[in-house]
């Protein structure tokens, strides 16, 4: 009995290694899409990157790589100058005729899901793991991600406090901020951090500063493409005077969030961000256990 298992294992091992021989791992990668690129780096694939798109801005070391432009406006010849084996991106990548041209030039094209849910993330990471030749590491990353989120969820549920009402604003130098509504990554983020999104519309919309003030949020989470911290707060209040006298501002409940967190699906930095947000919303939250940190 035991021997048969060993034999089967040997056969499987042989098959796997044959498989690996049949299709060598891609060595030169161009990655288009913020979260996808972050995962490549997270799983140790940074040395393989030879080019990234303009939405791949984190970590900062990527900015030394050649830029292939915006992920939806790739240029076939431009990408070919980098002689990549693989073009990685999300389903947002395009335009489609350029992808066809690249495919016929022998570039392998992998499009991950940009959806913000855990099932999509798991699938993405499994594919990435296979492409990098690091399936265990990718699976470990998924498990860790899931575990940290579950742990946070469990702890928040155990607290007696009521969920705070929060708005997430995406600004550009403080003016006309877009408010994240339903079905956005931003809303997913707020809910996972134990907050209630007060905005009821679909997608991202601008609200008048009066409407903003009337929603009477407990917290404002602001992600600004240009400004951070106190500067961001000043600019926002200068552009939206109605907010200045609102409860949320009087209590100083404004949080700043890195805008690169919200591009192209769930990225590896999300659990840490969620924990930080949750701890701000719920000061009583226990420090998370060592293995979940």
């Amino acid at each position, binding site marked *: 009995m035991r021997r048969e298992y060993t034999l089967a294992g040997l056969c499987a091992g042989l098959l796997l290694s044959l498989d690996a021989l049949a299709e060598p791992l891609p060595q030169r990668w161009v990655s288009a899409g913020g979260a996808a690129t972050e995962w490549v780096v997270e799983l140790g694939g940074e040395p393989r990157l030879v*080019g990234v798109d*303009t939405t791949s801005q984190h970590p900062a070391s990527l900015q030394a790589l*050649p*830029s*292939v*432009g*915006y992920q*939806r*406006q*790739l*240029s*076939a*010849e*431009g*990408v*070919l*100058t*980098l002689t990549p084996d693989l073009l990685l991106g999300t*389903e*947002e990548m*395009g*335009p*489609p*005729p*350029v992808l*066809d*041209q690249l495919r*016929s*030039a022998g570039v392998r094209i992998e499009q991950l899901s940009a959806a913000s849910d855990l099932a999509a993330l798991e699938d993405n990471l499994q594919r990435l793991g296979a492409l990098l030749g690091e399936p265990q590491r990718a699976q470990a990353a998924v498990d860790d991600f899931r575990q940290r989120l579950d742990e946070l969820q469990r702890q928040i549920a155990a607290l007696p406090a009521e969920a705070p009402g929060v708005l997430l604003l995406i600004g550009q130098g403080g003016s006309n901020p877009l408010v994240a509504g339903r079905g956005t990554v931003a809303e997913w983020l707020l809910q996972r951090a134990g907050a209630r999104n007060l905005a009821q519309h679909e*997608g*991202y919309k601008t609200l008048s500063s009066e409407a903003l003030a009337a929603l009477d949020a407990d917290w404002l989470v602001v992600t600004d493409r240009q400004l951070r911290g106190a500067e961001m707060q000043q600019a926002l209040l200068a552009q939206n005077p109605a907010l200045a006298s609102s409860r949320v501002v009087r209590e100083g409940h404004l949080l700043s969030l890195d805008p690169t967190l919200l591009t192209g699906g769930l990225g590896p930095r999300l659990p840490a961000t969620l924990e930080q947000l949750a701890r701000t919303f719920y000061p009583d939250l226990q420090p998370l256990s060592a293995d979940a940190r």
Partner: protein
Amino acid sequence: MMPSQVARWLFAALAGLLLLSIWLSLALGPVNLPLADTLHALFGLSGLGAPASPQAELIVGQIRLPRTLLGLMVGAVLALTGVAMQGLFRNPLADPGLIGVASGAALGAALVIVGMSRWMTLPAAIEPYVLSAAAFAGGLLVTGLVYRLGRRDGQTQVATMLLAGVALTALAGAVIGLMTYLADDATLRALTFWNLGSLNGASYARLWPLLLVALGVALWLPRRADVLNALLLGESEARHLGFDIEQVKRELILCTALGVGAAVAAAGLIGFVGLVVPHLMRLLVGPDHRLLLPASALAGGALLLFADLAARLLVAPAEMPIGIVTALIGAPFFLYLLIRSRH
């Protein structure tokens, strides 16, 4: 009138410029192909020589050649219809956008780009075709409306048509604005890029419809040079010279709507060519449409190819929208000629 000797030289120069732009467009790109490989690939493609390396064959045959053809067609059609509109409206500020074809196309594109992201999903492979078809249909529809509104008692009032064009452009702008409001971040960027035009991703499949329309326009419009010359004198004078002005107006507008509609559908909105090239050529060859039309076609094609070279080379491996380049090259050159011709 211009002495024919000078005109001949000028056309030789323009043809030379066009050939140079075609050659550069085929030979230069972000991928550094040796000259011999490019030639080899071209001979291979035309069936004359042995096939070249697959890499060179692909880049020259599948990427640069369709792109070059697209640029030529779009440039020539935009410039030709620009001449036709300036002649018809007897207004130097006229460009092909005046009769609503550009804003109609932009409206069609905006509806598809935003609509597809919000209300329906199409397979990614046919998305570009739906977009092109919608832009083409939008251009024709709005132009048709402008023409209808300009007609009274069997006569087409050019002034009314101009105003109707302005009003419908504003209306289309409002709907585009609404679409912009409904769009999410990514869709917004797609819309912006479309509005700046690009020859990127040209493929033979999308080239054929434009090629047919463009050839039709390029062959037909120069035959109307005499009428356009007569129109320079004024509408009633042209009628007294024996031309059927109503018929001509209809033809010119249909031609512009088809040509610009197809160009915009294939490459997005590329500004400035339709306005500036006719002016440039008028400064060089004079107002005679028999010279002006072919000269504009040659210059339009060459200008667009040079602009596209800049668009693909300047920020390689990324790419710039070509509309930025045409305006950047076109506007200062135009100003220079204006200032020089005043002295």
